[in-house]
C-alpha cells in the first residue's frame, strides 16, 4: 500500500500528467495516420525526452507506444489500411463490417477490446511484480547474457520466411555496436583511421535513420495518396456492452498478448495470430472470420494492445528490450542513469509502480478520447502522404541534429534512412538491426564480466536460472528445426 501511495505521489505532478495526456492523445493521432506509427514518433521524440525527467520522458513515450494501436484500428476498419503494422489483422474483419454499414459497431468493439487488452495487461504486470522482484535479483551476468542471447535467437526465428535476412541483419546490428573504441582496452575497432568513427555509431542516429528518415524518404518518393474515410455517425458506446458477449475471446486474446509480449522478439504479430486462430477454432461461426466477424476483430485488437505493458517486463526486470520500441526506451533510462534490471526492482519499485499506473491511466484517457473524437481523427487520416513525408523529414532533423549538433550524425542517419527504405521495399525487417545493437552490447559486457567465475564451459550453466535459459535456447532451436523439416516434408508430399 505504501508503495502504491508513493507511486501515485510520483505521478500526481503536472508535468507527468501533461506528458501522459500528450503521449496518449498524440499516440492515437500518430497511430491513425497510415505510414507514421509509434516507432517513427518515438524515434523523433527520443532526443527531446533526454532533457526531461526520466518519469516524464518515459510517460510521454509510453503514452505513444500504448495508444498508437488504438488509433491504428481506425483506418484499418474504415479504409482497409492499417494505421500501424500490428493492426493489419484488424482489416480482415473490421473492413468487411464497414462494408456492411457496421463501421460504428466495428470501431466501438475495437476500442473496447483494445481497452480490455491494455488494462488486463497492466493488471497482470502489477500482480507479477512481487514475483519479478523475487526472481530478478537471481539474474547475474551469465543469466542476463543467456537471456539476451535467447532474445537474439527469438528475434531471428520470429521472422518466419525471412530467417536468413533477420540473421544477417541482427549480426549487422551487433557489428555496428562494435565500431569505435572497445570498452575495456580502448583499442580501435573498424574505424578505418577515421576520427568520426572513433566514437562509434550512435544507436539513436541509427534508429532515426531506419525508422523516421526511411519512412520520410519512402513517402516522398512514392506516389501521393490521399486516403478518404466517411464520417461515422452515432454514439460508439455500445461496444463496451457488446464486448461482454465475447468476454472469453477477449480474455484469452489478452492473455496471449501478455505472454507473447513478455518473450523478447516475439510481440504483437504472434500474439494476434495465436489468438485469432484460437478464436476461429472455438467460434460457433468460424466461416465468418475474414468476412466481418466481431470475434475476429476482438481477438486481434485485445491481443495487440496487451503487448506494450507486457513488453516492459523484460525491459524493467532484466534490462533486456524485446523489440524496437522498448529498445528505444532503454536509451532514455541510460541517459538518466536509471539502469533497468534487478536493481531497479529492489531499489526503485515506486518508480516501476508509477510506470504501471501511468499505463493504466493511459488506457482510460485514450478510451475517453476515442469515444468522443473519432470523427476529428478522420481528418488526420486524410493528410496527403507526401505532405506527411515533408513533416517527418523536418521533424527527423530535430532528433538527429539535437543529439550532438553534428553534420556527420545527419549524414550517417541519412545513409541509414536510404538503407531502411531499401529494406522496407524488399519487405525485410529493420527491427533486428536495432535489437542486434542493443542486445549485442549487453552480451559483450555480460559475457566478459561473467568469465572470471567460469573455469569450464559447464560452469556457465551451473546455476538454476542459467540452466533453464540454456535449456529454453536448445528447445527453441530444436522446435524451429523440427517445424522447418515438417513444413518441408508436407510441401514435398503435396508435390507428390
Amino acid at each position, binding site marked *: 500500500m505504501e508503495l502504491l501511495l508513493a507511486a501515485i505521489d510520483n505521478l500526481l505532478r503536472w508535468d507527468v500528467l501533461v506528458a501522459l495526456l500528450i503521449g496518449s492523445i498524440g499516440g492515437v493521432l500518430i497511430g491513425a495516420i497510415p505510414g507514421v506509427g509509434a516507432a517513427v514518433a518515438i524515434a523523433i521524440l527520443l532526443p527531446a525526452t533526454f532533457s526531461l525527467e526520466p518519469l516524464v520522458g518515459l510517460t510521454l513515450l509510453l503514452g505513444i507506444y500504448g495508444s498508437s494501436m488504438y488509433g491504428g484500428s481506425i483506418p484499418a476498419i474504415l479504409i482497409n489500411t492499417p494505421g500501424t503494422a500490428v493492426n493489419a489483422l484488424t482489416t480482415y474483419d473490421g473492413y468487411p463490417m464497414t462494408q456492411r454499414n457496421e463501421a460504428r459497431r466495428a470501431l466501438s468493439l475495437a476500442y473496447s477490446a483494445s481497452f480490455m487488452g491494455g488494462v488486463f495487461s497492466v493488471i497482470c504486470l502489477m500482480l507479477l511484480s512481487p514475483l519479478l522482484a523475487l526472481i530478478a535479483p537471481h539474474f547475474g551476468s551469465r543469466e542476463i547474457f543467456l537471456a539476451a542471447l535467447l532474445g537474439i535467437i527469438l528475434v531471428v526465428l520470429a521472422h518466419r520466411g525471412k530467417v536468413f535476412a533477420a540473421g*544477417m541483419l541482427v*549480426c549487422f546490428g551487433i557489428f555496428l555496436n562494435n565500431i569505435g573504441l*572497445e570498452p575495456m582496452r580502448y583499442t580501435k575497432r573498424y574505424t578505418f583511421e577515421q576520427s568520426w568513427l572513433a566514437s562509434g555509431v550512435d544507436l539513436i542516429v541509427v534508429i532515426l535513420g531506419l525508422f523516421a528518415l526511411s519512412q520520410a524518404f519512402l513517402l516522398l518518393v512514392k506516389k501521393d495518396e490521399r486516403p478518404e474515410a466517411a464520417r461515422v455517425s452515432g454514439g460508439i458506446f455500445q461496444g463496451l456492452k457488446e464486448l461482454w458477449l465475447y468476454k472469453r475471446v477477449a480474455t484469452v486474446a489478452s492473455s496471449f498478448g501478455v505472454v507473447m509480449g513478455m518473450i523478447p522478439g516475439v510481440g504483437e504479430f504472434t500474439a494476434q495470430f495465436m489468438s485469432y486462430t484460437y478464436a476461429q477454432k472455438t467460434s460457433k461461426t468460424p466461416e465468418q472470420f475474414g468476412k466481418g466477424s466481431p470475434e475476429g476483430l476482438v481477438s486481434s485488437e485485445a491481443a495487440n494492445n496487451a503487448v506494450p505493458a507486457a513488453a516492459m517486463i523484460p525491459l524493467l526486470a532484466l534490462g533486456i528490450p524485446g523489440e524496437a520500441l522498448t529498445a528505444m526506451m532503454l536509451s532514455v533510462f541510460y541517459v538518466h542513469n536509471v539502469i533497468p534490471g534487478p536493481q531497479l526492482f529492489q531499489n526503485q519499485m515506486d518508480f516501476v509502480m508509477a510506470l504501471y499506473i501511468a499505463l493504466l491511466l493511459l488506457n482510460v484517457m485514450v478510451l475517453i478520447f476515442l469515444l468522443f473524437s473519432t470523427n476529428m481523427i478522420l481528418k488526420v487520416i486524410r493528410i496527403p502522404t507526401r505532405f506527411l*513525408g515533408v*513533416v517527418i*523529414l523536418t521533424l527527423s532533423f530535430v532528433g538527429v541534429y539535437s543529439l550532438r549538433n553534428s*553534420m556527420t550524425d545527419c549524414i550517417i542517419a541519412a545513409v541509414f534512412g536510404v538503407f531502411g527504405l531499401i529494406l522496407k*521495399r524488399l519487405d525485410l525487417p529493420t527491427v533486428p538491426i536495432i535489437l542486434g545493437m542493443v542486445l549485442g552490447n549487453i552480451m559483450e559486457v555480460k559475457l566478459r564480466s561473467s568469465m572470471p567465475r567460469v573455469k569450464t564451459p559447464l560452469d556457465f550453466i551451473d546455476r538454476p536460472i542459467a540452466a533453464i535459459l540454456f535449456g529454453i535456447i536448445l528447445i527453441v532451436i530444436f522446435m524451429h528445426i523440427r517445424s522447418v523439416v515438417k513444413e518441408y516434408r508436407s510441401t514435398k508430399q503435396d508435390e507428390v
Partner: protein
Amino acid sequence: MSQIKTMQQLFKRERRSGDLIFALLFLAFAIFLLANIGNQTQWVKGTKLVSQPSFWPAISLAGMTLFGILHLIGSILSPRIYGRLKEIGFWLRSLEYVSWFLAYVWLVPIIGYLLATLIFMPLLVFRAGYREKRLLLLSMIIGLTIVVVFKSFLSVKIPGGMIYEYLPDAMRSFMLINF
C-alpha cells in the same frame, strides 16, 4: 538433379525485385569487413578469447557472412520477379531527398532554425507536387509550430544561426534562446 531440387525447396521464399542485388551487395560488404578484421581490430596477448577486442566483431561478421550466403542462395533459387532496374531507380530517387535533408542541416547553423524551417518546408512541399496555397501556408504554420515546440519550449540543443550576430543585442539573445 533431385539433390538440387531438394535444396531449392528448402531455400525457396517469396522475394521482391531488387532482392538479388541487395543480397549480393550485402554479402560483398560482409566479406570486405571480414577480410579487414586483422588490421581493423587488435589481438591482445595473454587475454582470454572472449575478452579479445576482435571476438565480437569476428562473431558478428561471421554471422553476417554466413546468413548473407544463405540469403543469397535463397534469392537465387526463388522465382524471379521482373523490374529490378525500376526498383533500383526507386532507391536512387530517394537520394534527392537525402540532399534536401542535408541542405537543410547545412542551412540551420547559418540562417537559423526558424528561417531555415520556414523556407525548407514550403519549398519541399512545392517540390512534392502540392501547389495549393492552403497547403503551402499550412506547411509554414507546421514549421513554425515545430520550432516553437522543440526549440522554445523543450529547449532542444540546436545552435542559433550565424546571421543572428547581425541583430541588435536584445533581439539577438531572444532569437538565440527561442529560435
